[in-house]
């Protein structure tokens, strides 16, 4: 997609989000969660650039969310908890990454899945600490020391999520265009060549992994602060699957894809669940099938279809 088309799409997206959040207050919560999930999916997209799919990425979102839940009673400040959760997830990403970046493809994916399931079990089993499947309620939080009323609080969370989404999308965009990001894409096609260029491929992937874990942690923190309730379900494999689903739905061709996918996913879920409660998973499955078969570039690919077709036609 051209720079201008992408910038225009981003602007339109931001305007549409703000307008919807203003015009339909009951969707403010849904959109905030969507932006947070988009942030998590953006991390997944980094790994996808290297041809790697993590089937356990939700563990980092859960880690961020539980960090908020555990620390909130003693430090009920949004602007402290959010970076703390991101940092902790980043450190966890570094430790786990040192291990998993040695593996590729199905082994990489399954190792991530296994680790996330271990984390899920810990959250579920140690009732005394984690309250098991009941989960933990997050107490009301201050924002820069203030205790805003409910509606302001909602707007602040929405704004935080939107700001963070924009910042990370821009950052990811720059990173992917940089030598490091291009080397990351090189892992997918010719890892041997990277080594013979004197570039340590594992370190390139580790950097991406830590970055994706950090964004996952921030996403989880936003979700915990918005929903005010965390459960082990956040780390369950279906949550990781959901992130992959959103990634495919949105499309991996642009840093906007994850957010577009997440917004579509959450909105469809809200309306479909209300309209056809039992059939909603079937609808999701159908949508995924349609995307894979007819629009492998995802929603972002459809939106930028004409812009993308031209350079492709030339090459």
């Amino acid at each position, binding site marked *: 997609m051209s720079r201008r088309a992408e910038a225009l799409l981003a602007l339109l997206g931001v305007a549409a989000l703000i307008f919807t959040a203003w015009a339909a207050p009951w969707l403010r919560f849904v959109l905030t969660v969507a932006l947070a999930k988009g942030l998590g999916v953006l991390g997944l997209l980094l790994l996808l650039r290297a041809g790697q799919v993590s089937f356990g990425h939700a563990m980092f979102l859960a880690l961020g969310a539980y960090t908020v839940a555990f620390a909130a009673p003693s430090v009920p400040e949004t602007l402290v908890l959010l970076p703390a959760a991101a940092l902790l997830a980043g450190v966890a990403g570094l430790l786990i990454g040192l291990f998993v970046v040695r593996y590729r493809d199905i082994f990489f994916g399954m190792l991530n899945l296994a680790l996330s399931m271990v984390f899920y079990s810990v959250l579920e089993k140690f009732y005394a600490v984690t309250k098991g499947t009941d989960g933990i309620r997050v107490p009301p939080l201050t924002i820069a020391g203030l205790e805003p009323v409910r509606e302001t609080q909602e707007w602040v969370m929405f704004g935080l999520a939107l700001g963070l989404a924009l910042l990370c999308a821009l*950052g990811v965009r720059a*990173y992917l265009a940089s030598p490091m990001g291009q080397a990351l*894409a090189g892992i997918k096609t010719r890892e041997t060549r990277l080594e*013979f260029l*004197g570039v*340590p491929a594992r370190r390139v992937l580790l950097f991406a992994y830590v970055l994706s874990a950090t964004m996952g942690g921030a996403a989880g923190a936003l979700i915990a602060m918005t929903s005010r309730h965390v459960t082990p379900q956040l780390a369950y494999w279906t949550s990781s699957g959901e992130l992959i689903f959103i990634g495919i739905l949105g499309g991996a061709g642009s840093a906007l894809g994850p957010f577009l996918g997440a917004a579509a996913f959450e909105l469809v879920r809200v309306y479909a669940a209300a309209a056809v409660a039992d059939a909603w998973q079937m609808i999701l499955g159908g949508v995924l099938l349609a995307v894979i078969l007819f629009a492998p570039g995802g929603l972002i690919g459809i939106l930028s279809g004409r812009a993308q077709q031209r350079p492709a036609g030339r090459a």
Partner: protein
Amino acid sequence: MTVPLLSARGLRLAFGGVKAADGIDLDVMPGEFLAIIGPNGAGKTTFINMTTGYLRPQAGAIEYEGQAILGLAPRAIVRRGIGRSFQLPQLFTEHTVLENAALAIAARAGIWSPLVPLLRPGYRRDAMALLARFGLEGVAEARADALNEGARKLADIAMAVALEPRLLLMDEPTSGVAASEKMGVVETLVRVLREAGVTAVFVEHDMEVVARFADRVAVWSQGRILTLGPPAAVLADPAVRREVIGIEAAAAHG
């Protein structure tokens, strides 16, 4: 007597019962073009793999510029100045030729700047200059997997040359290249390497190329060096003609 740039002693490596290296002793002199010839399975690629850290010999020693390099990882050896190109070109297939070249340029400088684009003006200029040396500037914007074999071989070598090696090991730089393009490809790369003062070792099946461009020829057979010397003498040697060139001519015609 000049000091060898690369010095291999007693290299041994067996895969099961197959002796891919069975006591290899070889000195590569600074500035020379050394051709390696020999039948399929003789262990030519294995020698390059051992020298570049891709395979570890079971016995022996390799010194480069007087320092032991055995046991170092490929990327550590690359950083010391030994470049390598591949029998099957190893290009980033989903990137353009220019991006491939720019990545190689970036690799020399260090890639760890996450926020400045790869195709920044400096790298773009250097990458274009690199491609121009190999006559590849016309295909700079093409995807690497869209090139013909001759151009792919040259692009592969260009990426190794970007790191400014003092020694370059090339595995069959002309294999798979159409006969009509072959001499052009070799002339181009010999010109670039001479200009850059790079010492080269190349595996080659085409005796015409060997005769024209090699300073010395090493004949490989079953993991050993059969003979080593100037091309005129080696290529005229009846034993070599029978055991190596005869087989190759038969293989080429069969």
